[in-house]
């Protein structure tokens, strides 16, 4: 049995880092980030989200090989911000959006559950009459 352990899809190896940055020297303001033990979830999220910033001139990701749990994100900016800071800012903004989402979800869920229970009580009362 030489199948790789499934946890190798998400656990970093001993001296592996989550993100490695490599400057693309042939093009200005460009870097390629390698995300280890990550997949389309983050790849698509970050590369697409980056498109919404004015200072991003290019952003895309690829998974070089399907058997290796990593993706490469290539980012070019207009020079007003480093690719590294652009990615960081992007992640922070997503975290903030998710926080708003979480709060709204909590409030609405409670509201909906209360309405449901009220409805159920009413039905029970009507049945008992």
């Amino acid at each position, binding site marked *: 049995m030489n199948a790789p352990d499934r946890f190798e899809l998400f656990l970093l190896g001993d001296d592996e880092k*989550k993100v490695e*940055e490599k400057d693309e020297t042939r093009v200005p303001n460009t870097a390629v980030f390698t995300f280890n033990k990550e997949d389309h979830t983050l790849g698509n*999220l970050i590369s697409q989200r980056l498109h919404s910033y004015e200072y991003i001139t290019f952003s895309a990701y690829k998974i070089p090989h399907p058997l290796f749990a990593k993706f490469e994100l290539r980012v070019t900016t207009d020079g007003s911000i480093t690719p590294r800071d652009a990615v960081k800012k992007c992640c922070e903004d997503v975290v903030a*959006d998710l926080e708003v989402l979480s709060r709204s*979800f909590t409030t609405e869920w409670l509201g909906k559950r209360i309405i449901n229970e009220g409805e159920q009580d009413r039905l029970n009362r009507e049945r008992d009459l």
Partner: protein
Amino acid sequence: MDPYDVEGGAINVRFLQADSTRANFLIQNFDLATANALRRVMLAEIPTLAIDVVEVFDNTSVLADEFICHRLGLIPLNAKNVDEALLYSRDCECDGYCENCSVTLTLNARCTSDGVMKVYARDLVVSGGRPNDEIGTPVIKDPEGLGSVIVKLNKGQSVHMKCIAKKGIAKEHAKWAPSAAIGFEYDPNNKLRHLDYWYEEDPKKEWPVDETNANIDGVPQEGEAFDYDAAPTRFFFDVETVGGMEPDTIVQQGIRVLQQKLANVIQELQGGEDIDMGGFGGQSPQMNGGGYGDPTAGSFSAYGGNASVWGGGATPYGATPYGQQPPSNW
């Protein structure tokens, strides 16, 4: 103004259904990439509990040991608070398993009468010493209270097994999936033309739409001009639980896991050599104050004033993702 979206552009949630098994809701003013990332995380990366190791003492049934072990693994177990209540076994100091990283269930059944006896999930007995009195209990939804069938025994046959349930995620094995299925769609009327329907005669007849969702999203007018810049902003989710977790917990955990993932990236990008929480010195005053609306660069105010999110005021940038646990590498 859109009757379903009265919050003037802010991200918000509206529920269509909310009960103990389903959360059917829409997220408005959101973006596709984040919505899809959330969907993927809810499918594959939320920790739950499932039987992972089985010691077989006795098995004289017609099924092979590994066959039954596989079936045991797939039985949904209550995963209440598993995120904080249990460690991952691989991060635990014990060797193999212990009370800090597992819940033990015992299956001991013998057929002594004529005819076939079915062994059900309800016959799994949970040992004491678990972190709360719900975690590890098999999920049983049928009115008879039996749960799923594990094996059938004939007269004189028996099974006796010790099952070790561990914390894990569905990316490792689907038995750890918290949701049975997650419905996800946007633009039900295909106004954005992201879909080019294949059809025999008439796509309208051959591709049924979800009427509820389609009405909420606004039925397009005939001959309406196409907006080339339009992007989807409203996303329909239908999260159904397997039974081990409340549907709202699945969504909230999904959000947390995704935030944690991003937090790890942020930490790494700002030179995350220093894993001590004090290492963010410049930022620390922000951590518990600042409230939310100030997402300026370098500020982590998204976390401010909402300590509960990360448990006890710990920040996701600290060494210990959820405050109490030792680093778990991911």
